[in-house]
């Protein structure tokens, strides 16, 4: 009996685990479909099927090990990349967030204009001869009327019950709705247009206020255009997610919608001077920043490693101290450095006895960025080069020394070349990392300084990723489509560098 239980226990546990996994996933699927997130729902559904087939059959044993990784890779790496690529082909910016059908609905809603006098009424909602109606009062001018969707009946005040504010609350043939009924009629109250005069109607603003208005913009579905009923102007789909005035393309209706514009953003990166010029400047600085960072971090790390390679007194203490910047959370270090570089109160100006505006001057800001990154990154290279130097056979140096080579020659001709051979893939990886070092730039300088008065769009220390962030989220006009296109370019650059690094390190060779 006990033996049977133990024999089946792994299977029982497996099914319990699978059942729980399915329960959670089914919950997410239902939630996703309920929120109309069909892509997420469909992915989760496929994941459930894949999990069921993989773990409830013996179709493929290796897949049992790979499936979780494949699913997570798909959800958190491949999915976002594909989404970014797709979004880069859309006009997706402030004013163009919603779908076309939603935009049409909202333009219609906004295409209403009040009458010149901005006439409003106090209203009571109810029924008149079994029709949905309002009893409207203009208490100032002592005008009273009942209006349904099809007729308006002007009333004399002596036929009405009027409250202390001059608002009619009762009339014969008119039955006011109770407050509970009003709550139930909300949608009707918001959408019904009550007869007023000619094109004008009374629309309700809540349940007790009516405003006189008329429809100015009308959507003609058969021709997919809006027509201004007052001046006759026509607004047609401009192919970039807005209805634009046929006679004046600059005059667009808002809101617009997310519209496919295919490769327009990529073409803008090349053709549009206002996009290309700052992007090119930022790209050049990004390369310089990443290169200088790697160079200075490696140089200082190596220098310290060489120094610490000698048997000096207190070496262990020094080693611990040198690793401290690496051990500290970088966000904290960056913020502290930011304070130290403050012009008025910073420790650096106080120590130097200067009043350098570190973050207001482009050159100083760039120097500050490199310095802070040097502080943050040199311990890493210190650790790497220390380890790598241990791997270089000491016989080589000894043989060279016997042959009469000076320590400098030994370092330049033996140690450094061998060291570079070992650490080159890491230098490449570090370059790729710093190419995207968003935290440092965002927290230290915010990409600045940027002289708005000179028309600068990108800041002096902006790197591609911080510049992309600004385009996507950093201003009043958030251009997520353009930011996606730049992100795709960054991805291609980083992927290429990483691939080169992987090849250089011959990591893939071990799999072949």
């Amino acid at each position, binding site marked *: 009996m006990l033996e049977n239980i133990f024999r089946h226990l792994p299977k029982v546990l497996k099914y319990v685990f699978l059942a729980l996994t399915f329960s959670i996933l089914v919950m997410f699927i239902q939630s996703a479909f309920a929120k109309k997130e069909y892509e997420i729902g469909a992915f989760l559904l496929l994941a459930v099927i894949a999990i069921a087939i993989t773990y409830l059959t013996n179709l493929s044993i290796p897949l049992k090990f790979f499936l979780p990784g494949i699913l997570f890779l798909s959800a958190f790496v491949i999915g976002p990349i594909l989404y970014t690529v797709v979004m880069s082909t859309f006009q997706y910016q402030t004013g163009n967030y919603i779908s076309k059908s939603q935009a049409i609905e909202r333009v219609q809603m906004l295409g209403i204009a*009040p009458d010149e006098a901005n006439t409003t009424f106090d209203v009571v909602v109810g029924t008149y001869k079994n029709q949905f109606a309002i009893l409207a009062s203009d208490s100032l001018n002592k005008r009273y009327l009942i209006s349904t969707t099809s007729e308006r009946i002007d009333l004399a005040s002596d036929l009405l019950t009027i409250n202390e504010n001059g608002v009619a609350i009762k009339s014969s043939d008119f039955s006011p709705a109770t407050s509970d009924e009003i709550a139930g009629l909300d949608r009707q109250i918001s959408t019904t247009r009550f007869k007023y005069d000619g094109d004008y109607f009374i629309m309700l603003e809540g349940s007790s206020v009516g405003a006189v208005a008329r429809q100015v913009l009308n959507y003609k579905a058969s021709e997919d255009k809006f027509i201004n009923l007052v001046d006759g102007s026509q607004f047609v789909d401009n192919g970039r997610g807005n209805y634009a005035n046929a006679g004046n393309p600059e005059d667009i209706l808002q809101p617009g919608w997310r519209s496919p514009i295919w490769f327009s953003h990529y073409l803008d990166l090349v053709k549009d001077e206002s996009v290309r010029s700052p992007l090119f400047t930022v790209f050049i600085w990004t390369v310089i920043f990443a290169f200088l960072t790697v160079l200075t971090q490696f140089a200082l790390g190596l220098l310290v490693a060489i120094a610490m390679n000698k048997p000096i007194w207190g070496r262990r203490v020094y080693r611990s101290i040198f690793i401290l910047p690496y051990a500290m959370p970088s966000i904290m270090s960056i913020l502290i450095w930011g304070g130290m570089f403050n012009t008025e109160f910073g420790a650096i100006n106080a120590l130097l006895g200067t009043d350098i505006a570190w973050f207001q001057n482009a050159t100083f800001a760039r120097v500050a960025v490199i310095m802070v990154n040097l502080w943050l990154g040199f311990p890493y290279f210190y650790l790497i080069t220390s380890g790598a130097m241990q791997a270089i056979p000491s016989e080589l140096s000894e043989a060279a020394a016997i042959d009469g080579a000076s320590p400098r020659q030994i370092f330049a001709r033996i140690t450094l070349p061998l060291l570079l051979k070992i650490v080159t893939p890491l230098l490449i990886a570090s370059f790729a990392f710093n190419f995207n070092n968003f935290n440092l730039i965002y927290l230290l300088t915010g990409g600045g300084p940027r002289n708005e008065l000179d028309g600068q769009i990108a800041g002096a220390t902006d790197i591609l990723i911080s510049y992309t962030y600004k385009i996507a989220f950093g201003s009043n006009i958030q251009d997520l489509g353009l930011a996606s296109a730049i992100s795709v370019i960054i991805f291609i650059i980083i992927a290429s560098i990483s691939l080169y690094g992987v090849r250089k390190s011959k990591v893939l060779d071990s799999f072949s």
Partner: protein
Amino acid sequence: MQKKLIAKGLASTLVLALVAGLNIVPAQAADKELVVWADETRGPNLTKVFAAKGDWVSGYKITVKSFSSFDALKDAVDKATDLTGPDIIVGANDWVPTGAKNGKLAPITLPASVKARFTANNFFDLSYKGSLYGVPLDINNVAMVYNEELVKNAPKTLGEMVNYYKANKDKKKLAAGLCIAGGGTSWGAHSVLSALGGAAYRMKNGAVDSSKAPIDPADLAKNIKTYLLDANGKSNGFFPATDTGCKDNYLDGKVPFAIIGNWEWQDYMGRGFQMNLMPVPGVKAGSYGTMFGSVSGAMLTSYAAKRGVEAGAKDLLINFFASTAGATAYQSIELRPPAEKGAQSKVEFTAQQNFGKAASKAGIPQIGAILNGTTGSKSYWDLLPAFWTAVLVNGRDPLTEATKMNNYFVKNITAGVKDL
């Protein structure tokens, strides 16, 4: 045996999955519920007010969702969809142009009787392209405070303030003469720009005066050279280009004049400072630098219509947020200066009243459609700090920089007035 076991396992798995799935699906909101989103201070206070009296709109239950910070609220608003969005958002005025462009906000027409409860200027910020998107809630403005320990009498001109600073800079170890403690070097510093003769835009008879440029570059440059720069064209230290440390310096008695926000007066009074509030004096006696008066608003969303509660949401805006009773009940806890006139008259704090007096002397509406800039231009929010940096830090020629800034301002006014 193996197949049976798998079949049983599958069956039990699916049953369990369905049962769990059905049970754990989040409950849908009640049909007639009005959902209000607010930040970490306004949210809990609104919850308290609605808990004390919840029948502002009969037949609807009012639910307030509080966010951990203003940024968290903004983030949630940005990500809101038809299915997840609220019916009313209590937020910043400058969300209106973006919210309207993105179709997240819905217009509301207020009757004249309700509009009369507010100053006409209050509606500028909550409007976009002729439509109003909410009701004003509380007023945000700045004013200049002076330290009575250092300066005995209220200054009459900017020159008087500069002279005091120059005479006492070393003797009293002053860190600056006038600095921005509240509102930043763009929003809070408009009164300084204006005291020196410039402006983001000028108002005439309650409307934006687009007939002439907001800045006379030669005049502004002359005043900057006279009051803010030394003989070598470098900053004389009277007005720093940054707001860093200003509040601490004022509280430490190292700055005689500071521009502070009406949301922070308790910090100053708590340290024993009097609220000697006034607008920044201009270069001529009797003239003052104009300062922005903006409002936070309760804004109607387009999601309310989607959820079938638009009428209820509009009723809540009119019956509660735009009413004397509602504004008084709310501001008695929130302690911000109410926008509603009836509630204003019930304000008891002298500091709030003094901010109001300063604003009535030299307040101008904050018009996001102009200040936020337009495609191909720059926003006022970026331009003015850049101007201070260029002139006071980098030593650039004030005339050249003022001319550049004026050109952008003119462009923004031309584009912005079309959106009003």
